[in-house]
């Protein structure tokens, strides 16, 4: 225990003593206030531990930025963005630009090859001519009547709008998957640990089975066969994680809680099984389950994006689908030439997953003291 830890604990104890001093005080101070203060104290301590790890803070900041992006989309749609042009799915903008005809294209944003131009537009053009054309995907434009900060996709839709819209979808999916995971896993873990015996083995064998199942291939098949939507997918991932690996981890945590003296005290005081599980075991298992919630979000985002990337999901617009569009229109190996098709969406998936993951790691160091940096 470091010096500052001890300091915090001491003030905590003092406060508790002050709060619970004498029976009169107990009747004067409502229970929820004691709980609330305790919660605030332990939160402050955990926060200072978490804040020591700079990576975790960076992760939180990134998540915050993405959250702002998600909120920005409906606001922009309601104010400055015309629906017919900026809708992430049905919008279209014919961006006119001037291109030069050349033999060999070196910069596809401002040049057009002679062969293509003669076939597509005008059979009489020559090298060096400058012609006006509707270019899709169009490179980023910051001026004009309709600015497209991240250009347009091969179907003339605004990439920025798609990106922001997909952010909201990602958060939604992550939230569904994570909450489902936490609810199921804490319940299953606590119940399995508390009852033990047959209940325990049934749940654990089931968890083994889920761990053994090749998740992505199964979803590959289920996605198109059932026409999975965002909501379905989030639930499936949440349920599988909740009954699977996370349940195993939380069960071992719950086992450690189960042998604590206060559990016996609660039983002796006449607490029923469910009372003990939900009032005493679950609250002590929850911190760890929040940690797995973070990792769960990472996983859900990655799976969703991968499935959308192959066009196997029934979704409106997601980051994976944005890359899928680029792929199906033949811009896959265009690399940096059409960077706005591949990089914003790809980086968005990677960075958000990264952020949730490092926040999870930061929380891990708070919860598992042995991981904290030593020396």
């Amino acid at each position, binding site marked *: 225990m470091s010096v500052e830890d001890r300091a915090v604990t001491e003030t905590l104890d003092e406060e508790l003593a002050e709060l619970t001093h004498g029976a009169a005080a107990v009747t004067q101070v409502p229970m929820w206030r004691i709980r609330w203060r305790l919660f605030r104290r332990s939160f402050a301590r955990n926060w200072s531990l978490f804040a020591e790890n700079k*990576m975790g803070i960076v992760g939180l900041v990134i998540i915050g930025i993405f959250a702002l992006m998600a909120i920005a989309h409906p606001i922009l749609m309601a104010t400055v963005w015309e629906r017919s042009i900026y809708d992430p799915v049905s919008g279209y903008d014919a961006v006119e630009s001037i291109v030069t005809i050349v033999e060999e294209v070196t910069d596809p944003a401002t040049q057009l090859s002679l062969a293509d131009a003669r076939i597509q537009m005008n059979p009489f053009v020559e090298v060096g001519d400058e012609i006006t054309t509707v270019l899709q995907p169009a490179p980023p434009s910051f001026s004009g009547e309709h600015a497209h900060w991240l250009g347009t996709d091969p179907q003339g839709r605004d990439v920025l709008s798609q990106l922001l819209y997909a952010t909201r979808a990602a958060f939604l999916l992550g939230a569904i998957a994570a909450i489902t995971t936490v609810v199921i896993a804490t319940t299953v873990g606590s119940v399995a640990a508390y009852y033990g015996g047959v209940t325990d083995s049934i749940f654990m064998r089931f968890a*083994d*089975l889920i*761990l*053994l*199942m*090749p*998740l*992505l*291939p*199964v979803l*590959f*098949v*289920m*996605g*198109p*066969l*059932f026409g999975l939507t965002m909501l379905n997918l989030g639930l499936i991932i949440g349920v599988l994680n909740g009954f699977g690996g996370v349940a195993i981890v939380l069960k071992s945590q719950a086992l450690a809680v189960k042998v604590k003296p206060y559990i016996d005290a609660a039983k002796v005081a006449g607490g029923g099984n469910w009372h003990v599980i939900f009032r005493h075991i679950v609250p002590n298992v929850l911190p760890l389950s929040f940690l797995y919630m973070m990792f769960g979000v*990472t996983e859900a985002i*990655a799976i969703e*994006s*991968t499935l959308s*990337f*192959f*066009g*196997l999901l029934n979704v409106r617009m997601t*980051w*994976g689908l944005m*890359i899928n569009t680029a792929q199906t229109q033949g811009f*896959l*190996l*265009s*690399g940096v030439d059409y960077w706005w098709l*591949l990089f914003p*969406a*790809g980086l968005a*998936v*990677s960075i958000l*997953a*990264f952020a*949730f*993951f*490092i926040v999870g*790691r930061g929380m891990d160091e708070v919860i598992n003291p*042995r*991981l904290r940096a*030593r*020396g």
Partner: protein
Amino acid sequence: MTKFLIRRFLQMFVLFVVFLTIVFFLLHAMPGDISNQLIGNPNIPPEQREILRQTLGLDKPLFQQYGIYILNFFQGEFGKSFTRYPSDVSTVIGAALPRTLVLFLAATVVAFWLGFKSGKLIAWGRGGKTEQAYIVGGVFLQTVFYPWFALVALWFFGSQLGWFPLGRFIDSDLWRGTIFNANNVFNLLILSVFVAILVFGLARLVIGRLTPDPLIQNRYRRIVAVVVLAGLVAFWWFSPMRIYAWDIVHHTILPVLVLASVAFGSTMLLTRSAMLETLGEDYIMTARAKGIPERAIRDRHAARNAMLPVTTSLVLALAFVIGGGIVTENIFSWPGMGSLLLEAVTREDVPLAIGTLSIVGVLALFGHLIADILYTILDPRIRIS
């Protein structure tokens, strides 16, 4: 030990049957009759539809259908592929399976080996900017959007630098007009590597019999390893199939490396934390007190023990590798199980999809079993108890 493994094997078998059952019921939860999906498929004559109905037992009650399905599976009878009619599903899978196995195995070995090495080193040289950079890099690899990462890698190394071919299994221009068949050359490649490993394993056994002194054993082992490796290279160097074999290997390198890099990140991070844990153990202090050189403490004591939790997590890495493998195959047009699965799914070739999915399930189970065996070998507390 054998008892433990037998129990584990039986457990896996039961789990596999459960897995098959889930696949079966998934199929039946799907809207509509499978054979109706064939109506619009011009490839398939009406008779075949009737045959399919019968082999799948679609006219019988559900539990009978289930029985037929399980029985068919264990007889290797998956029916005929819709899209590649009249090929049997088992034939199609038979051609794809070795390629996938090589991809998975090679990627797992590379990822584990490099990940373990670097994790060991960064944990040993604790602190500083290098460690931070490695951690960020490891987390990045673990969380990067894999299909996108593979695409960028393909674009960069294939298209920009031109070091590797742009996907596919072979360069068809090169193979035009040769007497060699790509599958045979590939299988011969696998066989030769397998024989080399076998020879090395046998030699190890013999050496163990010859002398009990670990110092001498190590020297002999090194010699045998060099000889076997030289033999393997010489065999292919003087073979008439040299350029063709090289073509296949050349096509394999990039997908293997890209697939390995994902599992590499997680293995490295895990090795690092496992190392930090073992470095705090009392026996490390004892080894220091004994005057064991630092390098030997790192490798023989800390890393050897850190390997145990890393091996356990090999199971988790396996999920990465299987999922990532499917993505890799599709992006690199690598004609393996993953490509088959996506093709079957997008073109609604139900028998092929079921067959592929089941075999991938078998692969996953075998992977787990191998990880279990490895663990028992590595940990004497389980081996001898």
